[in-house]
């Protein structure tokens, strides 16, 4: 039996190969004859075949064998890629994934026969048997300094040994020239080595050695957990052995087919306009492979716990600081007080570093999410009879793990919409003078303290006038008001629950269906989504996400004796005003800042406390999208980094609050939900009045 750790290594590798297969199938469809793509696929399938066989996953081994077989035929030019074949290949890939799930989740056994039969159907007449074991021996010379080479099958065995924590050595034994009974010496060498591990190859072959059919030198490949020095020492104790050299065989993490591996193999960047990435793509793939081997999977919960513990440290440090201050005031500056200060400072430094490191540990490349999409877009386009060039950029962009978990669904929705409703049919595109093939772009990149994700298509776009009309029909705005709203404001109506359905918004259907849910999901992780669309030219969704969920910069304020935090992303500016500057429009208090009318809200009052009525008022101007609201607070305490914590399931969602954080002194401060506050306040305001005033 294999240990959990071994299975986990196998699964990691499997995951990687599945991804390579997935990416390259997509490429294969575009560039059917690219030998590099075929080679890449062949190798991935081959590796899975080998390692699953070793692990005893027979069905997986059989399935990948069939796949490999097919690719071999493609590679040899005996077959041609067809759309139908790609479909079956994807089916096989899905089956492979099910087999994987079987291992990880003890899912019900998967029947591989139907898809195996389908794969076979493509094979040329001579049948599968010829090729069954006929893996072309792409001989390599990965063991440096030796004239001999390993076959692919041997490499496979060596790689499997790596998985089991073994090393492979290329051992060269020189027998004393005067030796009378060479065969006995060789036998002793074999026996000694077999006690330490497993001999998988001998040159000349073992039978020859036993008959003494060699000069003075022979070589063997040994798999063992022992180190090279000890092996060498053991052999040298055998009499009449003149010399022994032990070399470690280092196969590359991935495949060892050296010639093609260093060539063009655009596998990492699934589908790109050019379809090829050049050597850098292949290099990155390799680096990722190596990196993966050094990765430990950690439950996010554990990281959260670590973060909490660091929070505790921060609190203790603050207390220590205070303690030092008391000492200083009591005893003045003396050596002990200085040491105490020093300790406190050092502790502060350490906790900061610790916090940063844990944060970094939570980050994952967005490739985790993006990698699923090329296949999805491909299938969908295929089904709808559309031609789509799907471009994915910025897969390396890193995001907080929690954000990554949430962002998948909204992106699926937006991409589906783009393919389904955005991109026109090839015929329609030609008719309106566009290229037959539509383009959908999915792109992630950094922007200051945010990650931006774009979902963009060059499809038919949205009809602003229709949305405007519909908004009026639905009574969301009156006609006059609707006329004044900008295009972007009008477009944002589609994010309202149940706003746009089917035919009413676009010529086809449902562009807006579910967009309210998309927005909700994104806002849940403190993100923000906006849409731009030009009729006939396409639609673009821009999602802005915080880098991490856990830590944000915030403006701390005090209200009715409690501390509140305003996320800095929503704080536009802070000002001081006198009560006389507060004006009234209908029932709403407003202030005018640089000619703009802003609704004003007293936070204490909003939270059910006493209204603040000082001679000078502090106002925090918060903004979400293009809405601005002034919030009156008692005191500004300054900016700081805070760790966001949820208020928990029991309290649920409390209007105006988005969470809590722990202050330096251990007390809890609440985080103001600027978005909800802005929406609530601006909704309550008679908008016409505001417009009239400005």
């Amino acid at each position, binding site marked *: 039996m294999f240990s959990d750790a071994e299975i986990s290594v196998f699964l990691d590798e499997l995951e990687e190969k599945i991804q390579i297969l997935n990416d390259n199938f997509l490429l294969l469809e575009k560039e059917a004859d690219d030998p590099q793509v075929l080679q890449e696929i062949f190798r991935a399938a081959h590796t899975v075949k080998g390692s699953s066989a070793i692990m005893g996953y027979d069905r997986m081994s059989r399935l990948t064998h069939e796949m490999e077989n097919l690719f071999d035929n493609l590679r040899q030019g005996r077959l041609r890629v067809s759309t139908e074949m790609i479909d079956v290949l994807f089916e096989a890939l899905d089956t492979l994934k099910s087999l994987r799930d079987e291992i990880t989740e003890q899912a019900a056994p998967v029947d591989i026969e139907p898809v195996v039969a389908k794969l076979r159907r493509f094979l040329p007449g001579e049948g599968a048997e010829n090729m069954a074991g006929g893996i072309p021996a792409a001989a390599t010379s990965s063991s440096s300094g030796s004239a001999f080479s390993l076959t692919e099958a041997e490499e496979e065995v060596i790689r499997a040994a790596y998985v089991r924590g073994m090393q492979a050595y290329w051992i060269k034994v020189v027998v004393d020239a005067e030796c009378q009974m060479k065969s006995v010496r060789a036998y002793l060498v074999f026996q000694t080595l077999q006690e330490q591990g497993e001999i998988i190859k001998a040159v000349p072959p073992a039978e020859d050695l036993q008959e003494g059919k060699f000069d003075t030198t022979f070589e063997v490949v040994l798999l063992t957990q022992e180190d090279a020095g000890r092996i060498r020492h053991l052999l040298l104790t055998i009499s009449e052995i003149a010399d022994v050299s032990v070399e470690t065989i280092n196969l590359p993490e991935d495949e060892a087919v050296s010639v093609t591996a260093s060539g063009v193999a655009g596998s990492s960047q699934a589908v790109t306009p050019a379809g090829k990435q050049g050597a850098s793509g292949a290099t990155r793939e390799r680096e990722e492979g190596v990196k993966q081997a050094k990765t430990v999977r950690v439950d996010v919960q554990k990281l959260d716990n670590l*973060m*909490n*513990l660091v*929070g*505790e440290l921060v609190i203790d440090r603050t207390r220590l600081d205070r303690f030092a201050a008391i000492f200083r005031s009591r005893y003045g500056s003396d050596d002990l007080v200085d040491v105490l200060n020093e300790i406190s400072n050092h502790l502060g430094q350490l906790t900061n570093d610790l916090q940063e490191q844990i944060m970094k540990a939570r980050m994952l490349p967005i490739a985790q999410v993006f990698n699923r999409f090329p296949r999805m877009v491909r299938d969908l386009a295929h089904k709808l009879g559309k031609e789509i060039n799907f471009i994915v950029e910025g897969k390396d962009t890193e995001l907080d793990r929690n954000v990554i978990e949430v962002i998948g669904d909204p992106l699926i929705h937006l991409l589906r919409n783009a393919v389904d409703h955005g991109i026109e049919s090839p015929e329609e595109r030609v008719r309106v003078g566009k290229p037959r093939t539509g383009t959908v772009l999915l792109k992630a990149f950094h922007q200051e303290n945010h990650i931006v994700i774009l979902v963009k298509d060059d499809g038919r776009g949205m009809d602003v006038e229709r949305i405007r009309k519909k908004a009026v029909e639905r009574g969301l705005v009156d006609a006059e008001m609707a006329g004044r709203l900008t295009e972007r404001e009008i477009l944002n109506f589609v994010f309202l629950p149940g706003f746009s359905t089917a035919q009413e918004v676009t010529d086809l259907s449902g562009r807006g269906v579910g967009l309210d849910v998309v927005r909700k999901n994104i806002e849940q992780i403190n993100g923000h989504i906006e849409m731009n669309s030009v009729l006939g030219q396409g639609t673009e969704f821009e999602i802005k996400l915080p880098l991490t969920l856990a830590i944000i910069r915030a403006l701390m304020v005090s209200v009715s004796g*409690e501390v509140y935090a305003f996320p800095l992303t929503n704080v536009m500016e802070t000002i001081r005003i006198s009560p006389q500057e507060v004006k009234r429009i209908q029932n709403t208090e407003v202030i005018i800042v640089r000619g703009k009318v802003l609704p004003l809200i007293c936070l204490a009052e*909003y*939270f*059910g*406390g006493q209204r603040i009525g000082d001679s000078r008022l502090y106002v925090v101007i918060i903004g979400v999208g293009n809405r601005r609201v002034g919030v009156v607070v008692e005191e500004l305490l300054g900016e700081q980094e805070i760790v966001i*914590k*949820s*208020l*928990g*399931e*029991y*309290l*649920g969602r*409390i*209007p*105006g*609050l988005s969470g*809590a954080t*722990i202050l330096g002194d*251990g*007390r*809890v*401060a*609440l985080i103001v939900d600027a978005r909800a506050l802005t929406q609530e306040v601006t909704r309550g305001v008679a908008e016409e009045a505001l417009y009239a005033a400005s």
Partner: protein
Amino acid sequence: MAQKAEVTGREEQIVVFKLAEQTYGVDIGAVAEIIRMESITRVPRAPEFVEGVINLRGRIIPVIDLRKRFGLPEGEQTRQSRIIIVEIGGMTIGMIVDAVLEVLRIPAETIEPPPAVVDGVDVAYLRGIALWEERMIILLNLQKILYENEREALEEAEAAFEATA
């Protein structure tokens, strides 16, 4: 609960506390710890009986005032006041009580179903009454107390109960 009593030889371990001159008990299995009163941050717009939130070693824990939860007269916090931290259904919640008295082991058969009314405490919140060594301990049904969103369901059950009573 009943099954558990059987396993432990028909005994139950109860954390006994005082609230408005009455003696109450909760199953010790639900009690994570008992802490002294500390600074509680008020949470505006939360239900009235929610006193606020505290920092329990880096976790934000809501704290409810059991007196308010039961609609009992307000009391003052004293040096004896404690927060009992309970864990129910994956949630951790603090409950303010007047004093924690002791941990008792009581035979399960001394527990009787709750009478219709106990000193104004809604019967739906009760699990039963334990009469043990001259004492009367009111056992709480934490599930019911903590799942505020099930309140409507509770009220319905109450109405049904009253109809049958």
